[in-house]
């Protein structure tokens, strides 16, 4: 399969297949060596994927660093943190973290992690990389919109970074930015310019997400190669496809919520504000409801959880199947459960609002729908476990992260059953129990999925292999770091410890819990430092890693049939044709333990079942 890339062939083939789509590819390859057209204003999906990934890695380290600062504050509230003033200036005078800046840190940490890392970084990277490659397309349906999607994302990141430097501080009302706190600069300094920038950044982010999502959906529906029926799509593609639909349906609602908040803040409207007396004077806003914002926010906010999680589950499905050398168990049930989860995600948002004063009857409805989510989730978990059963497991780093994902998905998913039960939620709402729950089920699982994806598809992205040994060390320290950080938080929450508190020093009843906070912070530091291993491995291997072979993991999907060298249009000759589903691993009778999707049944009489063809 060693094919010398021939760009002219690639392009003529491309134009044959998608002559309607664009003429700009011809233009592009004339400038292949130009830094700007190759790395910056590229419309190539593989390069855009790398742009997303590298931006997300930067943002992730920033947000993780923030979390280490506030974790140290929580564990050692009286200690002076050395160098703090050098890093964050006036907010860390004499090594003491400012209480207002503490809130800013948790807010921006949450915002960056949820949106910039686990939405932009995860979907942006892998949808871009894998959708065209795995469905057998030359590129995304619109390369230009795709590039635009990244540049909106980059711009949005820049605005968010700028907001860290404004004098009154960045947004600090929590990543959920509930008004009136987020609407009134009198209530908290971060609701001044910092909040304005936060909103601008989010609007840009939403634009990026929508441009990306529309492209992903269109590409999956329209640009599948010959033979690639929907029922032959790898589960990764199904996951990205469903995720994109969720995003396109829910992000506009966040945009609406944000715009109304902008109006309330700047133009004197009263969508969310009513009966407010602050700073010694009553405000003129009348008739609004802060609860309205929560409804709008969580109408996005809950699907957002699955926008984060589903791509990770999709990546894990592929990685676990490939490395178990075994078909994923229950392919159709996996797709079905993702569809059910996606549908349910739109009718469960009220479980974030049980104790806001929302009508209790509505609360009951949301308990019902919320707990239903556990059923498709259980199906997925058992299918993963059955995939491992009687498998032949290659412990590559991505496989370890895949297994780690299933473990955290179970642990965090189960505590969701408690939080989704309104009666039980009363006493643990907004405590560390919630922090533990979502960091395990959504944070850890999604980041594990992302790591699995990076280790697995790094050769596809950079043509080189990441170092496995460093990968193993990275995995085990991360797994231990994450469980050590987030598991003890359940106890903090059950003891009634509220989240978003700068310190607990004025509550005698919480004094005994400081030991747990020490443990949490130490493990957070371990987990955080171990990410440096990944960082080193990632950038070192990009340059000096061992050269990859074309199909290093002996996988079936189409991306491994394309040459290692990146070229516009992906395949030098005609597009590959697909003849079978992507999970023919260890098929009885076959000489190898994998049969790529491009191999027709006519070539494999020895392994065909009556079922086939």
């Amino acid at each position, binding site marked *: 399969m060693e094919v010398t890339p021939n760009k002219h062939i690639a392009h003529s083939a491309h134009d044959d297949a998608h002559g309607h789509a664009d003429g700009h590819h011809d233009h592009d390859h004339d400038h292949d060596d130009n830094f700007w057209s190759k790395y910056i204003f590229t419309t190539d999906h593989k390069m855009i994927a790398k742009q997303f990934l590298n931006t997300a890695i930067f943002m992730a380290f920033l947000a993780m660093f923030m979390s280490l600062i506030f974790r140290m504050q929580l564990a050692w509230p009286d200690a002076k943190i050395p160098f703090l003033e050098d890093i964050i200036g006036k907010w860390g005078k004499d090594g003491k973290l400012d209480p207002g800046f503490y809130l800013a840190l948790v807010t921006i940490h949450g915002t960056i992690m949820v949106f910039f890392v686990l939405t932009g970084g995860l979907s942006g990277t892998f949808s871009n990389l894998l959708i065209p490659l795995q469905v057998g397309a030359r590129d995304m349906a619109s390369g230009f919109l795709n590039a635009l999607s990244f540049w909106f994302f980059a711009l949005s990141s820049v605005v968010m970074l700028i907001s860290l430097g404004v004098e009154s501080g960045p947004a600090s009302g929590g990543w959920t930015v509930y008004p009136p*706190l987020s609407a009134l600069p009198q209530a908290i300094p971060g609701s001044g310019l910092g909040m304005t920038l936060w909103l601008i950044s989010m609007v840009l982010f939403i634009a990026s997400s929508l441009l990306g999502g529309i492209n992903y959906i269109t590409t999956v529906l329209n640009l599948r190669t010959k033979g690639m029926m929907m029922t032959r799509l790898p589960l990764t593609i199904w996951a990205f496809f469903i995720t994109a639909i969720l995003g396109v349906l829910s992000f506009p609602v966040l945009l609406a919520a944000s715009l109304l908040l902008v109006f309330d803040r700047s133009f004197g409207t009263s969508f969310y504000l009513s009966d407010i007396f602050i700073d010694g004077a009553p405000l003129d806003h009348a008739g609004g409801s802060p609860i309205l914002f929560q409804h709008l926010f969580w109408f996005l906010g809950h699907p957002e959880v699955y926008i984060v999680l589903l791509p990770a589950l999709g990546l894990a499905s592929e990685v676990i199947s490939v490395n178990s050398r075994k078909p994923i168990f229950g*392919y159709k049930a996996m797709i079905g459960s993702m569809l059910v989860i996606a549908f349910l995600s739109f009718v469960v948002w009220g479980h974030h609002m049980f104790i*806001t004063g929302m009508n209790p009857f509505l609360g009951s409805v949301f308990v019902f729908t919320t707990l239903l989510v556990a059923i498709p989730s259980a*199906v997925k*978990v058992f299918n993963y476990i059955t995939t491992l059963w009687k*498998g032949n497991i290659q412990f590559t780093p991505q496989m370890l992260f895949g297994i780690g994902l299933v473990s955290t998905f179970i642990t965090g998913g189960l505590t969701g059953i408690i939080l989704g039960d309104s009666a*039980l939620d009363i006493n643990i709402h907004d405590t560390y129990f919630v922090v533990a729950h979502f960091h395990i089920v959504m944070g850890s699982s999604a980041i594990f999925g992302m790591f699995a994806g990076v280790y697995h598809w790094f050769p596809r992205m950079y043509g080189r292999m990441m170092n496995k040994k460093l990968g193993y060390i990275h995995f085990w320290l991360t797994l231990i770091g994450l469980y050590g950080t987030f598991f003890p938080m359940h106890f903090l929450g059950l*003891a009634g410890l509220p989240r978003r508190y700068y310190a607990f020093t004025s509550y005698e009843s919480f004094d005994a819990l400081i030991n747990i906070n*020490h443990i949490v912070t130490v493990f957070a530091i371990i987990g955080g430092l171990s990410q440096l291993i990944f960082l080193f491995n990632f950038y070192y291997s990009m340059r000096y890693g061992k050269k990859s072979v074309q199909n290093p993991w002996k996988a079936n999907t189409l991306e491994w049939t394309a040459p290692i060298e990146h070229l516009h249009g992906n395949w030098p000759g005609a597009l590959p044709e697909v003849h079978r589903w992507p999970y023919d691993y260890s098929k009885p009778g076959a000489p190898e333990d994998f049969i790529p999707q491009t191999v027709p049944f006519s070539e494999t009489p020895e392994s065909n079942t009556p079922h086939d063809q």
Partner: protein
Amino acid sequence: MNILLILAVVFGTLVLVRLANVAAIASKLSEENEAAEQESANRWNSIGMLTFLIVGLITMFYLINAYSPLMLPVSASEHGVAIDNLMSVNWIVLIITFLITQILLFFFAFKYKFNKNRRSFYFYDNNKLEAIWTIIPTVVLAALIVTGMREWNDITNKSDKMEGLKIQIYAKQFVFTTRYTGADKNLGKTNFRLITDANPIGVDSTDKASADDIISNELVMPKGGEIELVINSRDVIHSVYLPHFRVQMNAVPGMTTRFFFKPTMTTVEMQKETKNPKFEYVMLCNKVCGVAHYNMKMPVRVVEMDEYNKWLKSQPLVFPLATDSTTAAPTATIAAATTVLK
């Protein structure tokens, strides 16, 4: 504590040093070694899986045991006991599920490590299995949903049925204030435009019901009283959180929220229960409300009914100086007015 910090830094440095070594060694490895290397990696990582499972589970049960004294004491309210029971039932179901799934996951990962002389079992679908793990969770969840909803309805439906002992909790940035009813058992209306330094919660003095209202900066409740918390905020969203009573409800500007409950243990009884003579109930703000959010709290006491009545008499009226105005009628008149209203 600084020792821990130092330890963490030392540990981190060691990791980085080790890392550099590993990278150096790894780069020397040639391709022939790759298969052998992967075999050894498979062995160590599969053992790692089993070890993580065992050590993890032992640690988990150790922590549950070690931290149980730090958890909230027995609930000091009637519905709280029911919530705690429901929580226990949930935990049993969840821990069993947790054990089954995690043990299968890590054990299979341990057991089925790669062996080049073996093939995976080509097993991709089985409707019976899928049905089993769709139906069993459905049945279990149905039970959890039904019991949970019943409890929720018991807690929240009271607002329609009962007339409680009304206590207003009024939140503003970083201070809670309470307001109690006088003999008329009703709270006077409030309006945020009437807020002044002397009238911090904007009670409407033209409302007859407000004349005997009592204001305080602590929450004192009679044991066994049917309490109706009437919750308001004047600036941003706050949350009234009484962890010892399993009570939480947001305070939202522009609307009134309520929570009904019945305290069952006095502070003194709870001090005996927890064997901590200094134990005090506390009310915390549990919705981020500004820079000093972490210090927004109010002392809470539960006392016997007669002590409560005595305490209430000692607290100031909302309009203490208004005896000569038309709105603040003598107590007898208020009592009469209340009778008429009923």
